[in-house]
């Protein structure tokens, strides 16, 4: 019950943002989407203002939009409760290499367990960067909300979209950075 009370202001905020934010969906597009049925239109009509900006600008934001956009994306990033950005690399391994979880290997080379795709940059030997605070923070933030660094890119905003919890993202960071991780001790599988 308390949860619901907490949600109300969030929903109102969302509505307010939706009304003042940019809109991609005109009356005709709305009608078309609704013709696809309830389940489909529920998702497509719930487009967030940042998704609308990427749609309007065909994924390439103009300079005047870019600064405020990146700033807004940075504001969304949340960190694990214990403040540790590197968790357990073994748990990160399972997330990185599982289709229904991180599914990272579908786009990135680097995993010793799966042949990587080439849609994203290669992450082979990612751990060479070391484990400084800056490297951990960058890696964590890119996974949590990639649009704070690469606006409108195809990679999922794992933390922002609720696909991975902050602690799970920290596990993936460890998988990439921990010198003891299989990711850094075993050779990457390549096509």
């Amino acid at each position, binding site marked *: 019950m308390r949860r619901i009370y907490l949600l109300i202001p969030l929903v109102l905020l969302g509505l307010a943002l939706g009304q003042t934010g940019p809109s991609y*969906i005109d009356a005709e597009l709305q009608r*078309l989407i609704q013709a696809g049925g309830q389940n*489909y239109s529920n*998702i497509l009509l719930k487009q967030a203002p940042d998704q609308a900006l990427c749609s309007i600008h065909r*994924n390439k934001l103009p300079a005047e939009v870019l600064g405020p956009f990146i700033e807004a994306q940075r504001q969304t990033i949340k960190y694990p409760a214990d403040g540790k950005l590197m968790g357990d690399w073994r748990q990160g391994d399972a997330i990185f290499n599982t289709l229904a979880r991180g599914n990272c290997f579908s786009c990135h080379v680097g995993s010793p367990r799966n042949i990587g795709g080439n849609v994203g940059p290669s992450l082979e030997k990612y751990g060479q960067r070391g484990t400084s605070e800056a490297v951990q923070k960058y890696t964590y933030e890119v996974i949590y909300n990639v649009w704070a660094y690469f606006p*409108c890119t195809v990679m*999922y905003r794992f933390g922002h*979209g609720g696909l991975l919890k902050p602690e799970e993202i920290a596990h993936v960071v460890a998988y990439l950075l921990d010198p003891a991780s299989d990711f850094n001790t075993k050779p990457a599988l390549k096509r």
Partner: protein
Amino acid sequence: MRNRSLWIGFLLALGLGLSIALTQPQEVDPYKEAERQRELFRQTAGILPGELYAAQGEELFTQKRGSKNASLEACDFGLGPGKLEGALTQLPRYFADTRRVEDLETRIVSCMVRLQGFKPEEIKRDEVKALTAYVASKSSEMPINVVPKTSQEIAMYNLGRELWYHRAGNRDMNCAICHDAYAGGKVRLSPVRSPRQGLSNEWPAYRFEADKLYTLQDRIAFCYESIGIAPPEFYSEPYIALSIYMLAEATKGKHKFTELPGFTR
């Protein structure tokens, strides 16, 4: 009819068995692998699964069925009643009788309703798929020729393009972010193509890894599912909009259909 269905069942089971037995752990070129699987079907069964679906569709097409006890031979796919040769190459298009832009699958449903007297809720998806395979087989390897001309077709094309760029869902996806930005690349093993590169020119197709016939609507639904968005209901306008956009772009790229039904991964 029953005999054919048994055959289809047997051959599809055989196909699944073959694809499991022959799946190799190392990397293979998906096009070459499809070609190899296709040859194996030819050698062991003498016929391709897609051809069996088309044969099933032909029976459904010519049989007198529905409350009006009629066949589909009077169905006009845009070239005149019963004219199937090349019919798919110019679909989707606007039809004056239904006053809608329709793709092949939607047109089959309209004809089943209008000519045969089926109620929309009585129409079985599997029958529409077989009929789609049959009608499409008459456009095998022909040049795609979808050029939106009427105001309705142009409006549908424009909406399809908007939908193509519409980012949504908790994975922020749209079609363009993969199919335009990474055309020529690979997601896991799958090559990614843009509409201009002829994406959509192999459907309906038998997918040997899934061991099923996929129409273009099935394939679009599969895309939506794999990006975590509930697909539109079959025969609804989002499919028609996306199809006319993709096929009109494929036309600009001067692409042909592959063998239809296609045979693919």
